[in-house]
């Protein structure tokens, strides 16, 4: 379907509110216009091994989506497909045209542990990497690249550490720098791989609040992969849980139920709400033999 220009779209939206059917049609249209990535019956894997099958997932602008699942369930595989480092074995994975053409960027925040601490790089050098795709070959960073890096560091409250060695930072600070690096590419969507792994409660809270702030105030679409369900439960709007090669996606309250978690993790769980915060407790290991 051809995308509408902004003026026509807003005119239709204003007129559309007068008719209920037309309004719902426009909502669908709106969703289609804001679609960033779409998986349709996608099968993912490595070599002959199938990791995930029949993945149906749409990421639209403004989403705060979490992908959870037991260890080895294929969370990282989904992420690799999104980063185009693996291709689907079958099905279609469609990116919005602007993303395909490189006009819109996807920001990626890898797991901190995957980055080698031996490298004597400053915070500035690490964050500048987020600009490299735009700078191009045989060119050096320009004044505006440095301004973007400073702005990105200010967004994560790390502007005071521009020339600090990356390896000398704490876990939480490193995570902030990696988020700044992703922001330096001026992304439309932020993909985070286990952003709270290895952080203490305070660090975990600070990083998640920062991500929420970027989502709310910078209008960034956020997709995060994590096995920390307690974190997901309090931040994401939509949740995708992977269970035995299949992915279930929906609104958080529909997916995050005690029944679903018991089935997926094969253990008894209880979801509690304390002062508006959700907490997931495991009660006992379910006897697999019956």
């Amino acid at each position: 379907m051809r995308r509408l220009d902004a003026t026509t779209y807003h005119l239709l939206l204003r007129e559309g509110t007068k008719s209920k059917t037309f309004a719902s049609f426009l909502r669908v249209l709106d969703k289609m216009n804001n679609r960033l990535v779409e998986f349709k019956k996608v099968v993912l894997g490595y070599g002959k091994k199938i990791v995930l099958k029949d993945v149906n997932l749409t990421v639209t602008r403004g989403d705060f989506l979490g992908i959870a699942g037991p260890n080895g369930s294929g969370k990282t595989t989904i992420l690799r497909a999104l980063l185009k480092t693996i291709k689907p074995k079958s099905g279609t994975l469609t990116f919005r045209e602007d993303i395909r053409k490189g006009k819109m960027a996807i920001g990626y925040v890898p797991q901190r542990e995957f980055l080698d601490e031996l490298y004597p790089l400053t915070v500035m050098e690490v964050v500048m990497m987020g600009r490299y795709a735009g700078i191009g070959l045989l060119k050096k960073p320009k004044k505006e690249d440095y301004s973007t890096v400073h702005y990105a560091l200010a967004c994560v409250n790390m502007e005071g550490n521009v020339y600090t060695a990356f390896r000398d930072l704490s876990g939480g600070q490193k995570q902030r720098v990696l988020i700044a690096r992703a922001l330096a590419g001026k992304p439309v969507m932020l993909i985070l791989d286990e952003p709270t792994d290895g952080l203490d409660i305070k660090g975990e809270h600070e990083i998640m609040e920062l991500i929420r702030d970027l989502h709310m105030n910078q209008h960034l679409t956020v997709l995060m992969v994590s096995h920390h369900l307690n974190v997901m439960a309090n931040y994401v709007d939509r949740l995708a849980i992977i269970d035995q090669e299949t992915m279930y996606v929906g609104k958080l309250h529909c997916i995050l139920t005690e029944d679903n978690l018991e089935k997926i993790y094969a253990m008894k769980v209880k979801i509690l709400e304390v002062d508006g915060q959700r907490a997931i407790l495991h009660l006992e290991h379910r006897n697999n033999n019956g």
Partner: protein
Amino acid sequence: MDDFLTTISLFRYAIAGIILVSFICSYLGVYIVLKRIIFVGVAIAQISSLGVAFALLLGLPPMAFSILFTLLGMFGMSTNPSGKRLSQEAIIGLGFITASAVTILLMAKSALGLHEIENIVYGDILAISPLQVYIALGAVVTIITIHLLFYKELVFVSFDYDMARALGINARLWNLILYLTIGAAIAIGIMIAGNMMIIAAIILPPINGLILSTRLRNAFIISSIQGVSTATFAFFLSYLLDLPYGPTAAASSFVVLGFSFIAFKLRG
């Protein structure tokens, strides 16, 4: 003084060769140490020698086969046909021991005398020809030009491969370029300065650079300067004291590294 100048004049090609290969190997060694692929470097050095031994046995050009074997070795060690059954380290060990053993077997079957072939296979700095120096000069200029022009891409891919790919940078190509330039430098270095000197050059000066520097650019500079200065100093030392060059170069580098450790500890 006259004696010194006469020595320089007499061994000008050897000195030029040493400066060229020690510079490029100690520069690229920073990547080898950072990427934790020191054993790849050691195994590649051995595979390069295997290429020379193979070429000598069949009467083929040694340098071309040294480079060819090195590149094949680089490719072989970057793959793991066993899946998860074997570690990459096991593949590297396999490459090292196989290349070492086959090199000795090929040398034993060569028509040349054992000492003569050892000099060719493991490099003899005094036997260096002007042509080898010109080849080394061409290779070093090409490699360093690539590395200076594409410094940011090579560092990025080396530091965070997945992020580089996610940004649409052809990480696989840059990684391949990095490995090929390392392989070519080691192969040419061994033909000129010998196995031990090159292994020392890819490990010790980069360690020194990384100890003394808090910035990556400075680590490259310190490593290159130390690599060239200790390799050249070791040449004169080995000449004056009648010592084998390779071990003298390695020992000299180690002494400098020792001083660096002390300076690092004193600095706190």
